[in-house]
């Protein structure tokens, strides 16, 4: 770390749990952020500010006026631009040292697998179940920790699926593919602006903890947040021994 970095990250370095060693881990890490919308915005902003070395941002969409109510990575002049380009510009304003790789597509197949394999940590900030399951499968295959967040209306869900711990469940253990049929979208249902900030910021916190190797993550727990009643709840999760994704082949 050079002098400017020591200064920039000094408030992290002051923390016993992070210090120079932890900050160095963050600088060497590569985070894959799937979705540059309501959750991906605050998540990527904090990862960049905190000094994650490489952020791979992927999203196939362009910025729409209706996104600006909550997707704080994008600004009014960016309407019509690809989200990943607008996002990269904002992240560089906050921290020009971060290497932002902008992938303007919905990742799947081999490309998704390769990006997951290259990542230190994966953040699922997407808006559909098909992608959530594809990302989960790739993370299980590559034994990469997955930080999953969802937000709709006033309700949020956050969890960590870290298959490096043998007893940890995967996303499919929790919500089997095909049973999560009722896809509710923000475009139809609406979403409370700061809810996406709260959930996305929690995802950034869990990702930074995973990279730095500190604290207790949400692995094996699902955190539920009700913004209307300001109520948090946490439920313990168990692995499904018969899970077709993470169970014995």
């Amino acid at each position, binding site marked *: 770390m050079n002098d400017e970095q020591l200064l920039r990250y000094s408030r992290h370095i002051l923390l016993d749990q992070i210090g120079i060693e932890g900050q160095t881990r963050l600088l060497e890490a590569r985070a894959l952020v799937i979705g540059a919308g309501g959750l991906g915005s605050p998540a990527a902003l904090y990862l960049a500010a905190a000094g994650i070395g490489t952020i791979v941002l992927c999203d196939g969409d362009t910025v729409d006026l209706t996104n600006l109510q909550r997707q704080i990575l994008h600004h009014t002049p960016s309407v019509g631009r690809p989200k990943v380009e607008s996002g990269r510009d904002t992240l560089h304003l906050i921290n020009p040292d971060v290497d932002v790789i902008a992938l303007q597509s919905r990742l799947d197949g081999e490309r998704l697998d390769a990006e997951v394999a290259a990542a230190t940590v994966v953040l699922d900030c997407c808006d559909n179940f098909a992608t959530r399951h594809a990302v989960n499968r790739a993370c299980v295959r590559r034994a990469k920790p997955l930080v999953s967040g969802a*937000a709709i209306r006033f309700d949020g869900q956050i969890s960590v699926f870290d298959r490096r711990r043998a007893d940890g469940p995967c996303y499919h253990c*929790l*919500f089997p593919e095909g*049973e999560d049929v*009722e896809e509710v979208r923000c475009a139809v249902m609406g979403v409370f602006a700061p809810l996406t900030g709260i959930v996305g910021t929690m995802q950034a916190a869990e990702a930074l903890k995973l990279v730095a190797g500190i604290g207790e993550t949400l692995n094996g727990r699902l955190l539920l947040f009700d913004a209307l009643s300001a109520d948090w*709840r946490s*439920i*313990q*999760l168990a692995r*499904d021994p018969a899970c077709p994704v993470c169970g014995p082949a």
Partner: protein
Amino acid sequence: MPRILFTQQLRRFTVTPEVDTPATTLQGALDAAFAANPQLRGYVLDEQGHVRRHVSIFIDGRRLRDRACLAEPLGAESEIYVMQALTGG
């Protein structure tokens, strides 16, 4: 005593009581909750009395695998959580 809880999302539509019940099976615990609010039944079960597809029930962190099997036994301190997967980002 086993306890049954419902996701906050359901609160938008109906009252979701937290019920402590001496029930020894999932069916018994659900019945106790439906007794407290009969409207809940339609949100959780379909016409055949099976758990609706988008509803997930966790008993002590374990997901109920068989939507038709409500005879699932409960422990003395079991916690049942009735919820739904969310997406949206």
